[in-house]
Structure formats: structure tokens, C-alpha cells
């Protein structure tokens, strides 16, 4: 049976080199991710790897893969997104983003203050509650249908709440960038690509926050801007995910 990770998200540059650019140390492993470019949960994992300076090769799944024997063989209970690092496997956004946060080069994106850490989790849950509606809004691009009016009305109160929260401070849970910002970056980016981009444009605090996030250098101190790896409309149409390549070790 084919290993879907090795088929779609191969970690090796080939020709005896290692890493996506071929100059990575053998002591580090390239992460392999399986997900989809229209899925906010997948994009959160890519942002986490870019923020924490971990190379990641990303392969796209088709909807039909989610119930396939090939996917079941690499992901317990067919959970997606799914991550592999050499002999280690995990799945689900919470598992992948926190694993990368712990493994990566940058300082932790989880606040040390207990109240802020809890607040971060609340905002992460709110962003996850938006995911299904975001996928529906992208129906014009992906060709997958859905009730976009209903998706809009589900997102509006959540975006109002986020807009209000961002009026209080620079980032979602205070003065420092956290995993909550990373989660909402994926959601806001995908809404901006959809025909409902006005949901973002009409909320000034979200608008100025996302402009800052798009221009922010990665958390690990490398020159990469994590948000530059988010997919374009063309990437989504082609079902293509961008790899995280670090070229300034």
C-alpha cells in the first residue's frame, strides 16, 4: 500500500541532499503534512511551521481521500490534517500546531500567564467554529456547493466579536502574538479570498490587524513571512499547498 505522506509530501530533496532546499542538517527532520488549501485547519499548521522555523512539505488531499484505505493506513480514524515527522505521527490542528510550537526554533506562542493561556484557547475554539462556514464561502472557487447566505450569517457575529477584541490590543490575547492570532489568520485570509471579502473589509480592527500579520516576520527570527505561504485563489483551484522552506539557517 502506498504511504500517502511519502507519495504527496516527500521530505527529501533527492540526490543525497536533505531538506527541501537540500542543505538541511541530517539531525533535523522535514515535517510532512497532508491537508487541503481551502481548509483553514490545514493552513494553521503551515503557519505554525513557518512561524517556528520548521521545514514542512505539504501534500493535498482530495475529499475522496478522507475515507480511503490509503489515508486510513497513515492516519488513525482518518483524521485530517495529518502530520508525520520521521517515525512520529499525529493529527488534528490542536495536536499539530502545539507539537510544532514545542519542537520549533522560536519562543513558545502559548502565553505563560494562565488567564491569557485560557483566553487563547477560547479564541482558538471560536476560530475552529468558523471553519465549516469558511469552506462553504469558498464554494465558488472549489466547486463544492453550500448555503453561502447561511455561512455569512454564522460568521458575522463571530467576526464582530473578533473586531471588538482587536480594538482592545495589538493582538487577540494582548500585546504578544500567540497561537490565537495564527488560527484567526487562516480564517481571515480565506474569507478575504472569497466573494464575502466585505466581511473583513468592513471591520476596521480586523483589517488593520491582518495587514500587520501579513507583513510580520516569522517568530523564529528567520526572514520568512509566514503569511506569504498562504494559498492564492489559483492555488486553491489547483489544490496546491505551499511548502515551508527555510533557506537562511
Amino acid at each position, binding site marked *: 500500500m502506498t504511504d500517502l505522506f511519502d507519495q504527496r509530501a516527500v521530505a527529501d530533496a533527492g540526490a543525497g541532499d536533505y531538506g527541501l532546499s537540500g542543505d538541511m542538517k541530517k539531525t533535523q527532520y522535514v515535517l510532512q503534512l497532508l491537508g487541503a488549501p481551502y481548509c483553514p485547519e490545514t493552513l494553521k499548521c503551515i503557519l505554525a511551521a513557518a512561524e517556528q522555523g520548521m521545514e514542512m512539505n505539504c501534500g493535498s488531499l482530495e475529499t475522496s481521500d478522507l475515507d480511503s484505505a490509503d489515508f486510513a493506513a497513515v492516519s*488513525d*480514524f482518518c*483524521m485530517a490534517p495529518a*502530520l508525520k515527522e520521521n517515525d*512520529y505521527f*499525529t*493529527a*488534528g*490542528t*490542536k*495536536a*499539530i500546531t*502545539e*507539537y510544532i510550537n*514545542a*519542537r520549533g526554533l522560536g*519562543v513558545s506562542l502559548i502565553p505563560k*500567564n*494562565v*488567564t*491569557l*493561556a*485560557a*483566553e*487563547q*484557547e*477560547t479564541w*482558538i*475554539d471560536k476560530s475552529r467554529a468558523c471553519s465549516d462556514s469558511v469552506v462553504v464561502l469558498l464554494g465558488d472557487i472549489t466547486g463544492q456547493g453550500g448555503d453561502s447566505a447561511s455561512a455569512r450569517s454564522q460568521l458575522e457575529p463571530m467576526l464582530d466579536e473578533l473586531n471588538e477584541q482587536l480594538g482592545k490590543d495589538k493582538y487577540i490575547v*494582548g*500585546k*504578544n502574538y500567540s497561537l490565537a492570532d495564527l488560527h484567526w489568520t487562516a480564517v481571515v485570509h480565506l474569507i478575504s479570498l472569497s466573494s464575502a471579502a466585505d466581511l473583513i473589509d468592513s471591520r476596521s480592527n480586523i483589517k488593520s490587524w491582518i495587514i500587520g500579520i501579513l507583513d510580520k516576520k516569522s517568530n523564529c527570527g528567520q526572514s520568512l513571512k509566514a503569511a506569504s505561504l498562504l494559498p492564492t485563489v489559483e492555488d486553491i483551484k489547483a489544490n496546491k499547498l505551499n511548502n515551508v522552506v527555510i533557506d537562511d539557517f
Partner: protein
Amino acid sequence: MGLFGFGSKKEKTAAAGKNDPFTLSGPANAASAKCIMTAGIRGVALEANLSGDGEVTMTHGPVTISGENAIETYLDIKGEGMPLKPKKARHLGDQNRWIEVASQLLDQGNKVDQVLNKMNDILGSQDFLVGPLTLADSVVAGSILTLKKNGNLPSGLSNVDAWLARVEDKIPESLRANVMSQVN
């Protein structure tokens, strides 16, 4: 502000006092059962007033927290001794994968038999889901006890039953009867 004025900015937040009670409200469902089990294992006396619908919420003095993940995070840090959240990245990834399995599958009634059979296999060779005791155990136990309460837990899973007893045993004796009466 760190040494020499560098480092991330520290922020002041509302903080609860030592004697402030922990109070949980919201529906009596898997989310509240997970919070109750986490509080129990962390040695926190949690007063639960459960009824109706909506989101599970906890207050602790001036602090109000919504959502099961946020409450579990708060209780884990505020509890007695070392937090259950593992430091080792692989254990952390495994812990969180089980937390996702609980919320995405067990609590939704999806793939319950498949998940439980896998758990039964794993728990035949180790005491807890990840290896050491982690939040995965308190959270998944909350989901499984809710399935049991609703008559949806398949029988014949001896390793899962033994694991539930081990998890229950981790709750301090002074709190155990009260905790288990709220989730059973």
C-alpha cells in the same frame, strides 16, 4: 520586560484569590464531564451547577473562562503540583490528538467502536493513553463516562474499564466521591 529591557511584554490580567471558589456552569454533557474530571485529577474542588444548553463556563473569582479547552488549560495550571500537560513534544502531540479524538469523534458519536477498540489495544500494554498520565486521560475519560451515562458504551472492553478505574484513582480521595457522582 526581560533583562536589559528585551523580551516579550508582560501583561497584567485579572487574578483570582487563593480562597475564591471554582464554579462550573453550562449543560450536563461531555464538555462539562471533561472539565469535572480534569478538576478532580488536578485536586481542584469544582462546584458544578449544570443545566440547560449553551457553552460550558467556569468562574474563579474575577476570572470567567468559556469553552472546555480553555477551562481544562486553566485548571491544569491552577491545580496542585505539576501540570498534566507534558513537556515532551511527542507526548504533547499524542495528548492533543486524543483530545481531538474525544471532541471530534466520541462526543459526536462518530467511529465510537473503532476508537474504543483502538484504546482497548493501547491500554493493554500501557497504563495511560499517552504513556504518562496527561490531560488526554481526564478528557477522554469525561467523554467515555458520558457515553456510559447515556447507555452508549459498548461492553467487553476490559482494558478501557481498568484504565477508567486507574484514572478515577488519581482523584484525591477527599474529592473522588463528589467528582464521580457528577459524571456518572
